[in-house]
């Protein structure tokens, strides 16, 4: 972990609240210039991890490094991080320009120079104030806030407030940039638009960015890598493609992707062959992972199709989505609910209750052991008996 010297490094951080372990040994590295999205269900500890990195809270054990420096016990001000809060946390009594200037004023001006009225007569204060004003101006310009500098936060729309919070974070060019669900208060259209702006800002600023979101579409579209967190643990950190197509853990596979991945209870026999309700699936486990017994076979909705022979299922309903169509079905052997994403023109009229048989490419099936760990060492049985 320590070989990445620049950016954010979290090593084995734990945090307990009232005897409950909220972070159970989290390790994560975000390189300088990298954009990592942290996704996970509500209450899994995302904000807690952010607060540890920002220094608002301290870990019970573990270390936090920023640009190679151990900052575990440092105050937030000494860490060179900026954070955008979910509620924006703008100072309501200050104008937009004053809000953006706060991080600079706190760092560059002495307490005397910051005094409301007398401060401006203090030696050296004028030059610093001018410098700050220029930098605030350019940060505001970068976010299209040029005409709003004299407004108070209460006079701004949600999207504008959000941009003020971003400007306040980028104005001092921090080494690490933390964002805790910055888009969750915006409406859908503005959210999509602001996504691109944030990525753009990140590219220009080049800081290590950790971005928390509930929204997996946001994570997959914006991030260089996605970290999936659940119940205080990071399950996998990988590129959006790998997270979607090649998950390490059944929990990652089911969390990412909408509609949810289909999971079928399977058994692995002595020869390593996976069967679902007695039917051979064409997937064989080989090599070192000699696992037998209960397992799970998972298939993305787009990897299932209607075939002449295969998994028997009952159609339960169709959902038309425009470019595709969702077929809800139920596996006959196990009663498991299944979803198929199909091209609309290929789907015959299927009244609820009609019998269908479903095929899939065994090469795209994902196999997990009873604990939900991915079994990667699989091969396709040469002559698939299902399709």
């Amino acid at each position, binding site marked *: 972990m320590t070989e990445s010297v620049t950016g954010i490094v979290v090593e084995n951080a734990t945090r307990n609240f009232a005897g409950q372990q909220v972070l159970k040994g989290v390790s994560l590295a975000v390189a300088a210039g990298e954009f990592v999205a942290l996704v996970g269900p509500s209450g899994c500890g995302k904000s807690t991890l952010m607060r540890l990195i920002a220094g608002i809270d301290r870990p019970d054990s573990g270390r936090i490094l920023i640009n190679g420096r151990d900052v575990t016990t440092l105050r*937030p*001000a000494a860490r060179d991080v900026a954070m955008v809060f979910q509620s924006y946390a*703008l100072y309501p009594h200050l104008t937009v320009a004053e809000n953006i200037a*706060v991080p600079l004023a*706190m760092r560059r001006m002495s307490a005397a120079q910051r005094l409301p009225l007398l401060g401006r007569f203090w030696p050296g204060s004028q030059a610093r104030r001018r410098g700050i004003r220029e930098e605030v101006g350019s940060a505001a310009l970068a976010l299209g806030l040029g005409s709003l500098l004299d407004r108070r936060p209460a006079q701004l729309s949600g999207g504008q407030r959000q941009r003020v919070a971003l400007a306040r974070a980028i104005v001092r060019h921090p080494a690490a940039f933390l964002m805790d669900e910055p888009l969750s208060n915006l409406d859908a259209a503005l959210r999509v638009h602001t996504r691109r702006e944030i990525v753009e800002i990140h590219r220009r600023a080049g800081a290590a960015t950790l971005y928390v979101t509930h929204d997996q579409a946001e994570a997959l579209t914006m991030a260089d890598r996605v970290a999936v967190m659940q119940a205080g643990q990071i399950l996998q950190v990988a590129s959006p493609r790998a997270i979607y197509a090649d998950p390490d853990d059944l929990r990652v596979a089911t969390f990412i992707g909408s509609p949810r991945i289909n999971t079928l209870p399977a058994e692995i026999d002595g020869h390593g062959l996976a069967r679902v309700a007695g039917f051979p699936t064409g997937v064989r486990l080989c090599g070192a992972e000699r696992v037998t017994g209960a397992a799970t076979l998972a298939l993305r909705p787009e990897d299932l199709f209607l075939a002449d022979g295969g998994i028997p299922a009952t159609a339960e309903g169709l959902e038309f989505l425009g470019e595709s169509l969702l077929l809800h079905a139920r596996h006959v052997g196990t009663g498991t609910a299944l979803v198929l994403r199909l091209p609309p023109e290929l789907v015959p009229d299927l009244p609820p209750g009609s019998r269908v048989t479903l095929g899939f490419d065994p090469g795209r099936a994902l196999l997990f052991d009873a604990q939900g760990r991915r079994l990667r060492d699989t091969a396709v049985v040469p002559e698939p008996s299902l399709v």
Partner: protein
Amino acid sequence: MSDAAILSAPARRRGASGEAITAWALGLPAVLAYLVLLLLPTLAAILLAFTDYELGAPAFAWIGLGNFTELLGDRGFAQALRNTIFYVAVVTPGSILGALAIALLIEAGTRGRTLFRAVFFLPVVSLTVAMASAWQYLLHPSIGPLNAVLRQVGIAGPAWLSSSDTVMWSLAAIGIWENLGFNLVLFLAGLTAIPRELYAAAEVDGAPSAWERFRLVTWPMLGPTTLFVLTITMIRSVRVFDTVKVLTQGGPNKASEVLLHAMYLEGFTYFRLGYSAAITLVFLAIVLALMWLQTRVLDKRVHYG
């Protein structure tokens, strides 16, 4: 709404006037109480202030501004006005800053919040007149514990309530004690309402000390609370009466005379109701001025709309 839409226009008007009648009927008790208990007495006081009416006198005469010109030359009234201003000027900042400091300490602490709140709120719910006897004992020049303590360290304590040098300070101290708990509870409520994330933002933005975070977050966010506390405390301390009545009766030699006690003396001891009403009007003018200050001037500066 949809019901109203299908009604014809005249019927709607009838419905509206019926509603108005109901509204007035429901509001009547409150309106009557306001008229009888507030508006009429105020009007009576205003009228009385322009007469020379004395209680029990068979007749009275309109004397125009006579009472007010007499007030201008009345040394006792001037003293009462000065004392009241002194009292307000000491009690207001004393009880506000004290309450704010204690509220910040309680808020920062982890335990005993309810206990401390109850302890400091006690003076508010206790009867001032009863507590005044306790103060009389505490401040007693010879048997009082305060002077006993001072004697231990070699200081001869003054006669707190009967020396004209110390009497107003003593009354003001009691006033601070009386108002502190009330202000404290208001400040505690105000502090709880400040979003935690603002403090986190201030820390990340580099506010180097607790004092800077106070200046950047707490003080501005408490603005509306502070304004309310300021107005309430000023009005409550302009109204100081019961401690004066019980402890000093305005003495020694009018050294602790205050507006409402002077009014009480004129009206109920000397029965000069006209003159007493004139003092009431001065008092009313001060209270109204304070309220105007709050709504017109300060209110704009603490609500960041």
